[in-house]
């Protein structure tokens, strides 16, 4: 199959990561974190985690392509 699934996965989670961590940084200290997520800026932290995951997937996809 000529289409590497890691590409869309990596892309989607990178976009999610950027969007959600960016939103988390912009809304830092907002009341909603106290209300919902025990005072943790979960958007920022989990957004960053998703960004790392997405970037890793993209990297793997790239390695897979150059291996061929």
């Amino acid at each position, binding site marked *: 199959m000529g289409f590497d699934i890691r590409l869309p996965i990596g892309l*989607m989670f990178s976009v999610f990561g950027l*969007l959600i961590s960016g939103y988390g940084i912009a809304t830092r200290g907002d009341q909603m*974190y106290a209300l*919902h997520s025990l*005072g943790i800026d979960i958007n920022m932290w989990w957004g960053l985690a998703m960004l790392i995951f997405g970037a890793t997937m993209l990297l793997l996809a790239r390695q897979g392509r150059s291996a061929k």
Partner: protein
Amino acid sequence: MIHPHPGWIDYAVIGIYFMFVLGIGVVLKKYMKTSADFFLSGRSIPAWITGLAFLSANLGAQEVIGMGASGAKYGIMTSHFYWVGAIPAMVFVGLFMMPFYYGSRARSVPEYLKLRFDEKTRGLNAISFAVMTVFSSGVSMYAMGKLLQLLLGWNFNAAIIVSALIVLAYTFLGGLTSAIYNEVLQFFLIVIGFIPLVFLGLKDVGGWTGLKARLGNDAMVHSWKYLGSPNSNPMGVEWFGMLMGLGFVLSFGYWCTDFLVVQRAMAADSMTSARRTPLIAAFPKMLFPFLVILPGMIAGVVSAATMSGKTNATAASAIVSQSAASDGITLDGGKGIIPPKLDEHGRPEMKDGNAVLDYDLATPMMLVRYFPSGLLGLGLCALMASFMSGMAGNTTAFNSVWTYDIYQGYINKTASDEHYLWMGRAATVFGLVVSVAAAYIAREFNNIMDVLQLVFAFVNAPLFATFLLGMFWKRATGHGAFCGLLSGTCAAALHHGLTLPTGSVPGVKGAFLGTVLHYYPSEMAQNFWTAICAWTTCFTVTILISLLTKPRAEAELKGLVYSLTDRPKDEAIEWYQKPVVLAVVVLTALLALNFIFW
């Protein structure tokens, strides 16, 4: 009241997810040239992808919502549905059955039955399977529409139509490959969406120790300790019924014979990959209880407002009690953040003086409780992904069985490959249209769906006996298999019709034949014994009739029966990638998990 208001960011996340799902279908369209590409992904997919898809196709709403609900009701015992009810069967299908499915070059499970037995056995299986997949897809659609309506106030019709159209678009364009690719995407989405939920929930209750203390019921935190007698555990089952009914008959019947999951392995790029598919799936499957059961357990013991001191009192009351005009969910009379079930007049349903809880809302309520705007979008995506992967799995399995086993088998045997590819796409549309109709039937006539699901359970229960004898006993004949299946189904109906769980009214729950021969302590116990009964009958009848009828020539059975097939040889792969090694690792880890949570 809790009434979540997704913000623009949440809708943006959902929108991006939909774009990716559709994009995968569009990109894959150009690879769909033959019917084998469409139905079998050209048998070209690596094992890790088919493995995750194998897991994800089954990861429908039933799992994410249902296992959370069961966690809230029964606690960690729910993990039996994984550790007893899935992993052993997944190891078995990978090691022992895949060589026949993949090696016989059958394109579907019913087609294997035709090769091994005869036309009528295949027809029986193909038709019942096709009807079942379409209806279960409809039931899952209905569940999703209802949930999104209740939780977010979304329009029921819109939720159903939009999700059906999206699934239709990507399966229509890219066939099985598209379904598999999206299942992998959905797998990661569900895992990544649920990890922060479990983290925040556990942190709030003070970790596993804190959760145990708050549950205050030792039976909720042990999987085996209280299985000695049905009266001492919340499920009302005993270890024998659990092991034989769930662990053997139901679990092997599902994981080893259901085309929905087996189809993923059939798309693998080699025999070794096909065998590794369920084994690779077993690793994450084993850990899923922590992702889907824990949120349900936590939901029963937390309150709607954050308890850790940082909470601002007015803010807390804002999320708990909104204005009376709001159509949010009321928690009055509920337990933790699990709301009571409402009857059609919006009043809590009562039983024995207590409100009946709507356990299906346990996990969704956790999402709106712990996720702020932003992550809420991700959580909702994970929820929708689980619904859609279940739907897509059913759709792709349906269109293959319809096209290969019913249309090509009985209606038009000699058309061109192009025609079958076209038929596959037409069946995709048709299947989804019928599913949508089924979703509306489920909404209007809840009882019809209960009856149908009961009938499906009767049909499925004996299946594994047929496959077991077919694959491992060369003397088994077509007449034997067919009579075995029919009598097994009848035995299931008979058993169900003559027994009743204590406290239930005769009808769909049992005893519809008028007399009650035996009372079971719970519905689950009754289901397990119905399955045991059906399996044993099918097994015995198949053997008896087979011995009375003429066996097939051994030469015809080569590649279809264990004793007449060469052992599969693994291609040149590293030792740690070999199916047997994976199986040993899986089973060791499984024992360890059972030991830790015994």
